[in-house]
């Protein structure tokens, strides 16, 4: 399982990458492996506002439907619309081309709730048994 050392992580298996007050969000390698072949991705529109912990979109594999939860609150400033036609990018390159959205944060303190790569590795190991 790959864990991007540049990222922070949520318990819902999203990664976030921070640049100034904008975060890029995707799902982790562990999440895409668990889901299996991703066949459908639904993302919010640019300009939508999202609240931390609420669903901002959906990733579906052949068998499963999985919400993408907003790791922070703020405004959607970009959505990775090519995933509409190429959802398999989520499997192929989850930390790169498979990114989901960019959020301009409204409350930078929310970052404190996120896990470091080491903490996330421990979290996954515990969850996976």
């Amino acid at each position: 399982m790959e864990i991007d050392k540049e990222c922070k992580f949520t318990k819902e298996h999203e990664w976030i990458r921070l640049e100034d007050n904008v975060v890029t969000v995707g799902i982790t390698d562990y999440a895409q492996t668990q889901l299996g072949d991703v066949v459908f991705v639904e993302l919010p529109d640019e300009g939508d506002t999202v609240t931390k912990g609420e669903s901002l979109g959906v990733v579906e594999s052949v068998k499963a439907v999985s919400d993408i939860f907003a790791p922070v609150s703020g405004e959607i400033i970009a959505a990775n619309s090519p995933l509409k036609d190429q959802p398999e990018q989520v499997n192929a390159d989850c930390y790169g081309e498979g990114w989901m959205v960019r959020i301009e944060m409204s409350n930078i303190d929310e970052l404190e709730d996120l896990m470091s790569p080491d903490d996330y590795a421990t979290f996954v190991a515990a969850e996976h048994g």
Partner: protein
Amino acid sequence: MKQTPLFHEHTEHDARIVEFAHWAMPVQYPTGTLVEHATVRTAAGLFDVSHMGEFEIAGPGATAFLQKMTVNDVESLAVGDAQYSLLLNEHGGIIDDIIVYCLAVDQYLLVVNAGNAETDWHWLMAHQREDAQLVNRSEEYALLALQGPKADTILQPLTTMPLGTIRRFGIAPTHLHGIPMLLARTGYTGEPGYEMFIPAKDAALIWRTLLAAGKPHGLIPCGLGARDTLRLEMGYPLHGHEITIKTTPWETRLSWVVKLDKGDFIGRDALSAQKAAGWERQLVGFTMVDPGIPRAGYPLITHHKPVGYVTSGTMSPSLRVGIGLGFLPKNIAQPHTKFSVDIRGTERLAEVVQLPFYHTQ
């Protein structure tokens, strides 16, 4: 959880194991469901379906017994024929869908769904007659399905029997790699192929032999995930989804299986009555017009009101569009009818289509 004789073959191949009807079954191999699906459509896939139940029924009363217990006409079967059929209760509800194989005069093999095997067994035993012996062979057989356009190419070098002698929906005893088995030209994918009833102790040897012989032709092991998407593209029903104890053959597009004029059988009176009175709902196939994937249980909507529900749905790997089966009111269950699927609170447009969704090459 119960394990098939091939469980260790699956874990050695790093299959992902899930529980299905109390069996530990491979849902996919590391190749993933989409690759497995495409490989069955273009080359061949090998499935372990040993969780299915096998019952043998033999004796001078076997044919009469099955005529009473099933909806299709068992008397029309010649030795070596197979027949899709249904077990109904007295109300016409579908206890299970099954395949009846005629192995010899007055000797039959029934293949039943894993999840219903126990119920079916008790149901058959409760109606047993002295001149027809029932034997549960489920533990003795492993069942493999070799499915795909390359199935014949892969299988022929392994047996002396000319495969052309087995007709579609036919079954014959043969030897494969020296192992005695029953070879049937049946399946659940829409592709050409075989199902093989193998002594459980020899299952691993046959599994490995087939995979090795098939490798140059693209054969890979496949899991239940691909089995489900393949059957759904063909519009084949799955018990517990499209057909249940609460649905009848008329409602579920299975009237072609029912032979009302063959003589008495369990459920016949109820079916005759429903045929005369009519019925309210009809199973249909539909494709999504809007983006989205229909899933079992999602409501089907007309005029913003729920009028039915999805029984099975997926993203069709071959067609790359959301497809589903579900119940609609009979009066609107015609091809080209537009309606909506409530996908997590949003109404998405869908359209009734002719089945199958996918036309095999």
